[in-house]
């Protein structure tokens, strides 16, 4: 809809540029902060010009606790999220293609589960895990993440499966394919881009969890956000240098994935509002 006078469009464009740049300043600020020394960070007047230093990074990366938390975050996202996506593929296929009874009930039940407040899941999980000895275990956290990824994975995958032409699947079945081999040789290869987009989205979701890691773990099983909140934000002195560099490290994969794959993420990011 380009039907505007050039002058007006020029003004509006400059305004949009200013708004977006200001909007993104916090990200730039934490990046800059992560390159300062401790005393520059705590200077009463914020320092804008300084010699970049990697002190805060060496502080964080020299701490085995941070590495353990980072490894945990990676495992929860890849293994927990990955398992969730894998078992969601056949389920989503059934929800889209079969005429089984209760199909829509299940589909909307899953959507509704996604809307539940996390705290309503956290409290019973805490009580259950306490009894089962699953507090602060990797297994316990993986269970949480598989469960959390399913509603998102089913919702997104269903959308992608709806876009596949059913004729190819029918032809394969007529030719004597079993359902399992039809899934393996036809549906999954065609669905691969959708599966990848879903997986990335689910990984981000698991990566971004705070509430479960913060309260279902106490030490060895902590993810990075929970670790940062517990170790750097203690009641004594807040470790702003560590927070700045750990935030940058933890956000870097998100920003990179977003920069290169945003086209495939938009569908998930709208939360199903746009088909």
């Amino acid at each position, binding site marked *: *809809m380009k*039907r*505007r006078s050039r002058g007006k*469009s020029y003004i*509006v*464009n400059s305004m*949009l540029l200013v708004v977006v740049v200001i*909007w993104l300043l*916090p*990200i730039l600020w*934490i990046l800059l902060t992560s390159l300062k020394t401790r005393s520059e960070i*705590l200077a*009463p*007047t914020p320092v804008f010009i300084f010699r970049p230093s990697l002190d805060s990074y060496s502080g964080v990366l020299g701490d085995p606790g941070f590495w353990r938390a980072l490894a945990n975050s990676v495992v929860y996202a890849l293994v927990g999220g990955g398992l969730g996506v894998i*078992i*969601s593929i*056949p*389920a989503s296929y*059934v929800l889209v293609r079969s*005429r*089984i009874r209760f199909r829509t009930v*299940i589909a*909307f039940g899953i*959507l*509704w589960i996604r*809307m*539940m*407040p*996390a*705290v*309503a899941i956290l*409290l*019973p*999980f*805490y*009580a259950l895990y306490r009894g089962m000895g699953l507090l602060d275990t990797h297994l316990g956290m993986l269970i949480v993440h*598989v469960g*959390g990824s*399913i509603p998102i994975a089913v919702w997104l995958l269903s959308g992608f499966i709806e876009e596949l032409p059913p004729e190819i699947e029918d032809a394969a079945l007529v030719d004597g394919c079993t*359902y399992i081999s039809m899934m393996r040789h036809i549906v999954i290869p065609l669905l691969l881009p959708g599966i990848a987009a879903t997986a990335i989205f689910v990984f*981000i979701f698991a990566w*971004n969890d*705070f*509430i479960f890691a913060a*309260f279902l773990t106490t030490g060895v099983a902590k993810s990075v956000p*929970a670790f940062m909140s517990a170790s*750097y*934000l203690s009641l004594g002195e807040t470790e702003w240098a560590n*927070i*700045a560099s750990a*935030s940058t490290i*933890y*956000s870097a994969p998100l920003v990179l994935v*977003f920069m290169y794959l*945003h086209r495939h*993420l938009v569908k998930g*990011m709208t939360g*199903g*509002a*746009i088909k």
Partner: protein
Amino acid sequence: MPRRISIVFLAPVMAVILGTRAYPMAYALYLSLTDYSLLRPRSINFVGLANYIGLLNDPIFLESFGRTLGYAACVVAVQLVIGTTLAYLFDQYGGKLGALRVAFLAPMVLTPAVVALIWKFMYQPDFGVINFILETLGMEGQNWTSSPRTALLSVAIVDIWQWTPFLFLIAYAAFQAVPEELIECAQMDGASEWQILWQIILPIIRNIILVGVLLRFIEAFRLFDVVFILTRGGPGYSTELLSVHAYLRGLGSDLMMGEGISISILMLLVSIAASAYLIRLIWKREE
């Protein structure tokens, strides 16, 4: 598709949902009818609806409930106005600003807890950059997260910063989907830009935007991470939104699990109502 195969394909997901959602929810319902406390986990007494009745007579809970509804409504309203306005301007004038438009979405993918930490740093009254900017502009610095006057506002600003791009994204996609011919017709009939926006474009995209608003409302209503990192519900009760309130009662300070869970179940009722409305909207669109 044969029934047997459908069931086999669905089984793993259904098993996980039963184990990680249905069963914990049933257990939560049961605990909400007891006086279960982490201080004496071995003695659980059935108390019927006492927790719920207690909550409905508890001014702190009722205040938190009202605060949460008000907070969610205000935050989403601001996000809607900024997001839709920017989306409209990008759609109408920003044809060549594709990269800028995408960059604006970046806050959405960041970890909310990390975003809260970043803002907590910027909010610091003595060396934070926000007060520095305010003072440079001749305004007064604030004790952002530690004053009851500004604490909830501090939470809201972070929420608005991170999630305005969400409504922007939805509104932009909706604007893009409006058929060009409709607008050209209206222009030929002499309609002003303002008239076209309000009488043609907005009625068409209303339902999509409404879906986005509901999704945002549900999320703002259950907000936890940002509040917990910025203020832990304080100072006083000033930022105790329901999720934090439920956490503090059940696990954080009071250790009264039965009560905390009852709060989270009452929250669930609100999110069921909002989701039911949301599902009806999506359903309507699909027909």
